[in-house]
């Protein structure tokens, strides 16, 4: 699957294209298939997201996951500060990153 991601223009936070909008949570990410380039061009123009790009992802039982470690770290947060990740209460969250 193909995922579309970027950073929110105002906050810099990692965002994922849900099919209609942007979300901070990878669980909400939609498979953009072949439509990525067109969405990317439109959304960059809309100025909500900074430097969006298309990545490879895979569907898992827990939802979509980026294929590359870099984007898995982006999806969760720094592996060395679990308290600052998007799932601070889930000690197992780091496992799917690495």
């Amino acid at each position, binding site marked *: 699957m193909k995922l579309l991601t970027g*950073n929110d*223009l*105002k*906050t*810099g*936070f*990692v965002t994922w294209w849900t099919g209609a909008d942007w979300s901070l949570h990878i669980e909400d990410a939609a498979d953009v298939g072949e439509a990525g380039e067109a969405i990317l061009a439109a959304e*960059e123009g809309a*100025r909500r997201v*900074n*430097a969006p790009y298309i990545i490879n992802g895979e569907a898992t039982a827990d939802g979509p996951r980026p*294929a*590359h*470690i*870099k984007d898995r*770290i*982006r999806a969760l*947060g*720094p*592996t*060395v*500060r679990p308290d*600052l990740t998007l799932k601070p209460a889930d000690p197992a969250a780091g496992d799917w990153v690495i």
Partner: protein
Amino acid sequence: MYKYDEYDHAMVDARVAEFSDQVRRRLAGEITEDQFKPLRLMNGLYLQLHAYMLRVAVPYGTLDSRQMRMLAHIARKYDRDYGHFTTRQNIQYNWIKLEDAPAILQDLASVEMHAIQTSGNCIRNISSDQWAGAAADEITDPRPWAELLRQWSSFHPEFSYLPRKFKIAVIAANEDRAAMRLHDIGIQIVEKDGQHGAAFYVGGGMGRTPMIAPLIKDFVPLDDMLSYAEACLRVYNRYGRRDNIYKARIKILIHELGADEYRRQVEEEFVHVKSLGIDPPKAEFDRIAAQFAPPPLDASAPDAIDRSDPDFAVWVDQNVAEHKVSGHAIVNISLKPIGGIPGDASSAQIDLMADLAEKYSHDELRVTHAQNIVLPHVRKGDLYAVWQALDAAGLATPNLDLISDIIACPGLDYCSLANARSIPVAQKIATRFSDLGRQKELGELKLKISGCINACGHHHAGHIGILGVDRKGTENYQLSLGGSGAEDVSLGTITGPGFDEDGVVDAIERVTDKYLATRTEGERFVDTFRRVGMAPFKEAIYG
């Protein structure tokens, strides 16, 4: 310490206004990200993995307590309650919002700080010896020279779109604590015929193609220093490569031209530039130097230290250095607790260090390129009180220059350029070698980790260096041995095939075991490596 006058204030205020306007135009969609990026970078604002990152300049690594407290305030108010001290003596915040950036710069300006030219293809913040003004081996305080360069390089109209970034370091001691020869320009203040002048080493650097800077001019008088620097930069701006980002640093130009030809071109340009009258008069240097006058230290203060507390004694032996004035000492605060994140400090810790500086160190602190903090002027009689306060805040790890005093870049946990994580490797190594007796047995051992080829973690200059690479989507770590960023400057050599995260920790243990078995009396790790070469270590690692 240098204090801003009306002109310095006006310049920084103008920059805050300019950047506020640029942010406004970006958020309003009047400029594209492509146009905004070089502007935000010249104000230290990057877009990293999780958010914007702001890098705040700490000129030549010197701070007072008010400034240090402001760094804590920013961490608390605009970030997530911590900051990261860097190998260029700056501080970085990892969770900054673009819309907050103007307010942060305004807060910084209120304490004579800024983020000017902490990124971008311009002359970056000038770095220096963290023991400047306190070191027993310096011939003078290098910071007035660095401040002169700071002002000259700030908003330099000709050199703000260089082929690539440009880093300058200034030292004035024979011991090099600033990796001077691994900078684009490394300046060592030297003495000739009773006068101080600047020796210019040009074209050093780490990154993809590490180089040790050759000596370009052995003595540039103070009156000519800025003209000479201008000539060095102009030759680079005109002829540095712009066709390939990886070959755009000045080290490549000098390597391709040869040091002699580069020197010839600089000398020719210098003759011309000198006629333009860009060097300030001696009175300006004297005005600056007066602000770096030594603090009033009482040389009759008692020299003895009560070592009855054994934990305190261990810390004194490892982290406290000789001061040039009797009865005083330089306190090195380790930001490398075992298993911690190298260079990170919480707002509370930053505030505490500010308090200690105000109370015990004539209101001065320094940031070191090894990502530690220094209290430069502490009475020996106050050391115990300082240690107790540090110890209570988790800041008294007695590991300065030992194997757990690791330099590590933020790596793939934070950085968008990284290929592998650095911090977890540092944590595992420090944990493996956590026994202090074992660390002390190994002695001075500088271990440096970079998460990509850009070498922010100075791995080329590590006695032991680690470079994280991406091997088909998995993190892999190359090991190198024999580098040094000190006065015995050298570049490390790669041992062979890389390792995974645990494998590299094992490999380091085999290397240190081999060192212990091979060393002769008084040899540091790097000395043994230089004597026996790579072969025995390679044998120990790979069998």
